[in-house]
């Protein structure tokens, strides 16, 4: 007595699907490349190389321009400035001395008081 194998779910369909895939493989064999395949490929490579070259040239130009601008800024900053504001260029002591020389009595007095109190605390 022959015993029938229980069929896996979708077993028949699965086997058919495998056959369909095998048929598809046969229906689409490896195609022969056309005569223009290699020349076309080299044309595309050259076109890509050309655009990469342009991009490199552009990047190099940009770097040169940036370096030039940096140099100009450096030169500008290193030039001796004209008579700028004393507030930014002089030291604190120079400003105090200048004020004292101008003779503002209130300020002078205040400085003197500070000096005296400083000596008393010592």
């Amino acid at each position, binding site marked *: 007595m022959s015993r029938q194998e229980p069929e896996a779910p979708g077993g028949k*369909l699965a086997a058919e699907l495998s*056959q369909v895939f095998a048929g*598809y*493989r046969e*229906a*689409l064999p*490896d195609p022969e490349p056309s005569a223009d395949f290699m020349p076309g*490929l080299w044309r*595309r490579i050259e076109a890509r190389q050309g655009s990469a070259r342009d991009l490199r040239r552009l990047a190099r130009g940009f770097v040169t321009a940036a370096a030039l601008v940096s140099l100009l800024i450096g030169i500008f900053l290193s030039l001796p400035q004209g008579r700028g504001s004393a507030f930014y260029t002089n030291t604190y002591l120079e400003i105090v001395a200048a004020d004292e020389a101008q003779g503002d009595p209130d300020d002078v007095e205040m400085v003197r008081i500070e000096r005296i109190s400083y000596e008393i605390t010592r």
Partner: protein
Amino acid sequence: MQVDFELIRRAREGDEAAFGQVVQAYRKRILGTIARLIGRPEDVEDVGQEVFLRLYFSLDQLRTPEMFEPWLYRLTVNAAYDYLRRQRRRPEWRMADLTEQQVLMAEADRSSRRERVEQDRRRLREMVDALLGALSEQDRILLTLKEIEGLSLKELEKIYRVNENALKVRLFRARQRVLKAYGGLAAAGGQAPREQMGG
């Protein structure tokens, strides 16, 4: 391997003649794979050139010549994936889009036996294309490489750099989805689609 490592090494170092030889050794096989991956014979060469173009500009990143074939397949998969994504955005090509002249020519050719075989093949291509259309582009490519190209799980592992179990799960799900679509076609036609085509 269809070429020796020395040739690949020379191509990697910028030897254009060596690169040309590598392309000639692999182009037919790669074009065949692309044809089955994208299912559009008219665009196969264009995608094939794109693969070798990418190869030319990325060959210096190849660490060992032994990895050349999985590398080339990965480039093929990526180019086919890009193509399929672009195609999905375009309106689909249908029989109704044929010009009147093309329809008349098709009718006239119908009598010959060779043409009937060709017609069966075209219908099979359209059917498989429709079945694989139920999948995402990535799953379509993966299933095609396994079921139609006949690549082993080990080879797929090298191409995708993914572990075998993850690939098995993904393949199982993709196959189940295609099987369901195939069952739907069979139910709609009252018999298996394969039988409908006289296969």
